[in-house]
């Protein structure tokens, strides 16, 4: 089958699923899932075909990818010397895209399947799957886009579908507000992104991603009407919005109002990674603007520690995961900022899997305790829902960066690269975040699965493990969470050297090499050979150590029940600890008051400005208009007073007129 057909098919299948389900889903009732899920499965197959072909560079895929043009979308030729603005709707697949395709289609598929069980009792069953398909369409276009504008389209479409899915339970006021907030906050970033795109067109006279990047990286910075760093900042703004980086991170935690599969798919595994993907995609642009990369790193690592600090005290299980997502995304941005693009993508993949896993687990937990999300009313669930428990522990270990699970490899590579590329501060903060990560994850595990049950009494007896349609995907996600890291880095560091294979590039690094090579050498990043008993070893040890420390602290405070290892929970210690640092505690608890800040900025001040404008419009602008009318009419009324009805008055008026007339004629006649 020709790839010109196969590549569009990846998008077309879920699109068809969406259209059909939207049209007739209501009638299908509980059978509504077949079409969309089937569509996604097929699309996964197609994607895998493309991925394999692309990564193995077999025809028609060259090393730097292969593109399909569908139709001429916007033909706006320029007149009088203006550049032609002709946009083609087209797809482009290179190694980076391929890697993303794996994540998106696989996790997407699994979430679809999982939802069959999770949403089984929901009234909007068909609607949910329709939306999910719509999201798949948008996300796939996003990774496949070959032009900035198409990318922007997808960018907004994922926003739309996330809006729809967050607000899926529209009767819940909070859900409605959260969805709206998500869309609008994203729009803030998109403004920057849009301006960036315009700047790109102004600079390069094309919006094809590859051509424009080529121009941007080749020419000297001075050559452009809009300096490159400005362009990069604009594009970065878009990424900040979509990937919920500080200061636009506020929407993601609220987005947890959506059904859990949505949180897993969109707000953990795929959409929120779009920003990372885009910056990686635009690496030549950023490489051409190193100062902006520093900004990226700073924003990323700051978000990481900020979110982690918040995650440590949250009691809503999903919110903990949400903040952890923020924090991990912060890692990725930091990694991009320090020039470790490969590491960023690596973490993107592993994180996608284990965070997806964790969310689905949390969903399973919530399901088990009847839609309870507060961990303070959980505890001791380990025995009741063993499969969920087991998979979630795997996920926790993976994210905490304990070898040999996936998280370790990616996170360690990020930290290592940060150090080696001379961003010691990023590395340092990264380590602290690692401690926190391990801590809050095992705090979550402890509060949820260990210790005595705090589930309220009438739910207690009804706690049950989820159906297999839900647990199977859990396991399917758990496997990569364990092995993916090792596989993707093999035979490169750290495993390769450890097992005596020196100076090999890892699998993923090999795949992405053609995408990032240019930027790497423009940044002057040379791949120094890996010294196990040198700096790299030290870094390795450090990251392992901090992970362990984090876990231990968590155990000390929130107990542990792992076969032999057992410890009771010590709430009093937690109290004592929080009492020691009251400010930090309150700050963390109140999410550093960012929502309040927004409330002040937008609700109070913004509302005042809007009301002021409305007042100005009504009273001043319209007031002047009506005022003119009023003055005219009043003038008429006053003039009418002359009409007294008395002949003599009229006559006098005429006489005066006569006098004036004669007088003026004297003047005129005399003046000629």
């Amino acid at each position, binding site marked *: 089958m020709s790839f010109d057909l196969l590549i569009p098919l990846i998008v077309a299948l879920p699109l068809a699923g969406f259209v059909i389900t939207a049209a007739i889903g209501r009638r299908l009732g509980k059978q509504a899932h077949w079409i969309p899920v089937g569509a996604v499965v097929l699309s996964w197959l197609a994607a895998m075909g493309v991925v394999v072909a692309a990564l193995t560079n077999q025809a028609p895929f060259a090393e730097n990818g292969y593109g399909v043009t569908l139709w001429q979308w916007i033909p706006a030729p320029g007149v009088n010397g203006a550049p032609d603005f002709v946009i083609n709707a087209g797809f482009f697949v290179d190694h980076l895209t391929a890697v993303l395709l794996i994540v998106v289609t696989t996790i997407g598929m699994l979430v679809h399947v999982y939802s069959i069980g999770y949403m089984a009792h929901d009234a909007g069953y068909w609607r949910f799957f329709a939306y999910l398909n719509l999201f798949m369409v948008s996300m796939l276009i996003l990774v496949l886009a070959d032009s900035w504008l198409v990318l922007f389209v997808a960018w907004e479409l994922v926003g739309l579908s996330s809006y729809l899915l967050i607000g899926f339970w529209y009767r819940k006021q909070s859900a409605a507000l959260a969805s709206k907030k998500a869309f609008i906050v994203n729009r803030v970033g998109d403004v920057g992104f849009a301006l960036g795109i315009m700047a790109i067109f102004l600079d390069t006279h094309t919006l094809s991603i590859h051509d424009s990047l080529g121009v941007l990286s080749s020419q000297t910075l001075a050559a452009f009407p809009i300096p490159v760093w400005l362009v990069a900042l604009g594009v970065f703004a878009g990424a900040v919005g979509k990937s919920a980086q500080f200061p636009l991170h506020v929407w993601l935690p609220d987005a947890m109002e959506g059904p859990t599969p949505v949180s897993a798919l969109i707000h953990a595994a795929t959409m929120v990674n779009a920003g990372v993907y885009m910056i990686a995609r635009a690496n030549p642009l950023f490489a051409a603007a190193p100062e902006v990369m520093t900004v990226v790193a700073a924003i990323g690592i700051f978000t990481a520690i900020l979110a982690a600090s918040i995650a440590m005290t949250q009691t809503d299980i999903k919110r903990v995961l949400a903040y952890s997502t923020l924090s991990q995304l912060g890692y990725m941005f930091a990694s991009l900022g320090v020039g470790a693009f490969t590491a960023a993508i690596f973490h993107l993949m592993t994180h996608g899997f284990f965070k997806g896993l964790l969310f689905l687990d949390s969903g399973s937990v919530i399901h088990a305790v009847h839609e309870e999300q507060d961990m303070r009313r959980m505890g001791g669930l380990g025995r009741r829902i063993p499969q969920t428990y087991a998979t979630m522990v795997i996920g926790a270990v993976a994210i905490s960066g304990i070898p040999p699970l996936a998280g370790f490899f990616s996170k360690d590579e990020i930290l290592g690269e940060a150090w080696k590329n001379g961003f010691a501060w990023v590395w340092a903060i990264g380590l602290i975040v690692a401690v926190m990560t391990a801590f809050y994850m095992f705090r979550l595990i402890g509060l949820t699965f260990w210790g005595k049950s705090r589930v309220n009494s009438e739910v207690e007896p009804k706690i049950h493990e989820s159906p297999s349609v839900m647990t199977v995907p859990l396991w399917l996600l758990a496997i990569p969470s364990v092995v993916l890291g090792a596989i993707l880095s093999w035979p490169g560091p750290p495993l390769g050297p450890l097992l005596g294979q020196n100076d090999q590039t890892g699998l993923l690094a090999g795949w992405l090499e053609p995408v990032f090579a240019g930027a790497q050498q423009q940044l002057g990043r040379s791949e120094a050979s890996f010294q196990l008993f040198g700096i790299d070893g030290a870094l390795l040890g450090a990251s392992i150590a901090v992970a362990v420390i984090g876990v231990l602290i968590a155990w000390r405070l929130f107990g542990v029940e792992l076969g032999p290892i057992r410890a009771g929970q010590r709430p009093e210690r937690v109290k004592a600890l929080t009492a020691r640092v009251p400010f930090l505690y309150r700050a963390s608890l109140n999410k550093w008051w960012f929502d309040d800040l927004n409330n002040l900025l937008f609700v109070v001040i913004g509302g005042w400005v809007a009301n002021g404008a409305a007042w100005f419009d009504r009273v001043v602008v319209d007031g002047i208009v009506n005022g003119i009318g009023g003055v005219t009419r009043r003038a008429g009324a006053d003039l009418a007073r002359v009409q007294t009805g*008395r002949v*003599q008055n009229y006559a*006098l008026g005429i*006489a005066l007129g*006569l*006098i004036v007339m004669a007088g003026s004629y*004297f003047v005129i006649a005399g003046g000629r």
Partner: protein
Amino acid sequence: MRAWLYLIAAAVAVGIVVTPAILVFIFGGGSFDDALLAAFATLMLVAALAVVSMRDIIRCGLAMIVCFIALAGIYVQLEAPLVAAAQVIVYIGAISVLVLFAIMLTQTKSGSARLTFQTQARWGALAAVVLLILVSLAVYGTIWPNAGPRQPAATEAIATFLFHDYVLPFEVVSVLLLAAVIGGVFLAKREDITGEEPTL
């Protein structure tokens, strides 16, 4: 008794009229003509003032007759006897009718000043004075390009004009009178139309 008063009044009136004539005769270079004009003019103006200022409407009418007689006199001086004659005939005739109508119309033969004069009377006076000033300024500021000495207008000449050059206006005036009469008769005719409330 009243007769005496009338006599005195008449004497005063005559005095008013004659004094300026005498003055003019004495100081104005002794032309009899001028004296006569002065007399007529004074009479005319005084009468006119009486017309506009007296309260008794009938006396106003009588004063107007006097005024027109004086005017006729001036016409004679201007050697337009025909006009003078017409003046006397038409106006005395017309005016007598006018005054009769007036009596027939207004029950109150004379009324208080409030009933006689408009509140804006003084403004009217002012306007009139200004008008007079304007006119006299214009008159004395003007050299009439083709003005010559005063000559009599031969009646034949008038006749020819009337029946040759101005025959059209002459005819038209008859039409005008006809129209006026028809309309006037209709309006004055008392007939109780099936009247209903006023409709704007």
